[in-house]
């Protein structure tokens, strides 16, 4: 009992330490990078903070960017717990957004809440089926899910371009080829007192619920066994195909829901503005959070801040808009490299978790 509690404390401490170490390494490499381009690294790092968190506007901007990332991250994180590497968040988001538009245009005159719920479900189910298809191809046909979901991203974007170029095109929008719009009465607004749309709350709630499901239910336990050792899961008699399909569906539904909120709360119609790498940054969020839905909330806010401060970096230092992409790339690689550090910090064993009262209790028992 004592060891169990201590090892949990240590694993959390280790994860926090390793993650912050990776973050520190990232900032050092990134500083060297911008320094080579003639910008003062300290000023750039300060601008990253300013653009992400310093003012009310920048914080609202950060949270707005973070909302879809929480949901697209689930598309990688949930299948990853079952041992799959799914990178189809970008495509599932686009398909979810398209489904939202297609259903939304039929709901003219519907009351607000039922309309929004139906559209959200449409987006989530479409995205879920999109990724579940990749899971099915893997289980029943042996098609590698990483490659198939990547191809599905391109296919989803092609389907969107095809639809908005003809079948569902709104010819009154001449600036950018766009689809029909959902009814204005069904557009989702901001949270009370904050210029951030409701997608943030929905995203955070989804992460919390999935954290609970993955940690406290037999389904979550079975998925973790499968992800840890597929042979053991087979011997235990789990229905592996079902678990994989369910994880893929849940993950895809997350990304599809992100697409639904991009339509309902941000754009109102589908066009190429949906394809802004939200799915790809979601992969990074999932890995940085070590596929833990609770950690995704925080990491998504961090990555949202990087995106949000991109404009400031451009304006103040004349750095290209790809600067944030470089930073994300460095961060991703540091985080992956940091996996090697696990189990090597023996000094952690010397720390007694004095703040945790449980060990005393279990001694008495």
């Amino acid at each position: 009992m004592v060891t169990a509690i201590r090892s949990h404390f240590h694993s959390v401490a280790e994860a926090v330490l390793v993650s912050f170490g990776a973050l520190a390494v990232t900032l050092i490499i990134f500083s060297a990078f911008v320094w080579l381009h003639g910008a003062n690294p300290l000023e750039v790092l300060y601008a990253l903070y300013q653009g992400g968190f310093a003012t009310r506007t920048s914080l609202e901007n950060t949270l707005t960017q973070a909302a879809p990332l929480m949901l697209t991250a689930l598309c990688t994180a949930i299948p990853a717990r079952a041992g799959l590497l799914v990178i189809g968040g970008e495509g599932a988001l686009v398909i979810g957004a398209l489904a939202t538009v297609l259903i939304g245009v039929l709901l003219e005159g519907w009351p607000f809440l039922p309309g929004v719920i139906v559209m959200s479900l449409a987006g989530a189910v479409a995205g879920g089926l999109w990724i579940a298809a990749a899971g099915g191809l893997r289980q029943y046909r042996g098609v590698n899910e990483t490659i198939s979901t990547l191809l599905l991203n391109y296919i989803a974007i092609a389907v969107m371009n095809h639809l908005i170029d003809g079948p569902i095109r709104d010819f009154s929008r001449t600036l950018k080829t766009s689809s029909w719009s959902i009814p204005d009465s069904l557009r989702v607004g901001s949270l009370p007192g904050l210029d951030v749309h409701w997608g943030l709350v929905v995203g955070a709630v989804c992460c919390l619920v999935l954290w609970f499901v993955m940690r406290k239910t037999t389904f979550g336990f079975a998925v973790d066994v499968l992800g840890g050792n597929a042979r053991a899961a087979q011997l235990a008699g789990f229905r592996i195909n079902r678990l994989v399909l369910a994880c893929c569906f849940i993950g895809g539904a997350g990304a599809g829901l992100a697409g639904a909120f991009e339509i309902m709360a941000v754009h109102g119609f589908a066009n190429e503005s949906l394809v802004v790498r939200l799915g790809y940054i979601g992969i990074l969020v999932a890995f940085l959070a070590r596929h833990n839905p609770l950690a995704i909330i925080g990491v998504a806010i961090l990555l949202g801040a990087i995106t949000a401060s991109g404009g400031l970096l451009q304006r103040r230092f004349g750095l290209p808009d790809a600067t944030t992409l470089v930073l994300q790339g460095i961060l991703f690689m540091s985080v992956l490299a940091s996996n090697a550090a696990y189990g090597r910090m023996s000094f952690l064993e010397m720390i007694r978790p004095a703040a945790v009262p449980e060990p005393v209790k279990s001694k008495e028992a």
Partner: protein
Amino acid sequence: MQEAGDLGWWGVAIAVIGGAFRVSTPYIFVSLGEVITEKSGRVNLGLEGILVMGAMSAFAVAVMTGSPWLGVLAAGIAGALLGAVHAAISNLPRVNDIAVGIALFIFGIGLAFFLGKPFTPVAGPILPHISLGAWSAFPQVRNALEINALFILGLVVAGLVYWGLKNTRWGLMLRVCGDSSDAALAMGLNVNYVRTVATMVGGFLAGIGGSFLSLYYPGGWNEGLSSGQGLMAIALVIFARWNPIYCVYASLLFGAATALGPALQTAGINENYYLYGAAPYFLTLALLIYSSSPDRLLAGAPAEVSISK
């Protein structure tokens, strides 16, 4: 449109064949690079990032020096360096090489966009080609039979890789590391070292594939230059069963699929343009579904490669 109209559907067919020769070149280089990397037991999913970085480096160096061939070399070196980054991280314990590839994908594209910004509006030199179509009176045919120098180089490299994997000491070392790292250890091979070299060579070739995009077709540097050729090449390797010669055939097929959309458009068929444009992705997925199997390792697949399991 009118010119193609003279030839009718033949015009489309000729444009597709010409497109196959033209568009297949980056596929050939990237897939050969990936064959070498995967034969050593690693997957580099970041070849798309290397491709884009190669395109940018090639263009920048070609513009600055005026020599397209120096650009090709620079693209290869940039690719090898990014390959070294991939290998260095993947050599660490408990690191998933596929995930590193995704990170490299983002990093390579970011780096290329970052460094390439000043070169977007510039016009640059292009690589030479050989005209095999002088006998024809039709400009479409002459156009289709302009064989670029990198395509020919790609065929030579494919032959070399095929021969090298089979007949050289290096080829054997590579295959041992790819099929069983235990056997490689027993032979006294440094598995990580072999895989590092293989990933760097793979990166070198993928970088050259990228140079084709900016120095021949479509030419120039912009952020939309690549449309995922680096990613499709990875699926192509599976379809080609890790055989360098089959890679060339598969690349021609993929090139033809990529050329289908533009060919139909020049023939005046504009409907479903985006769906035809997605033909290579549909084709890749269909071929993957066709050639995969749930219960056995694919023939020719290196046993240590996680993507074939």
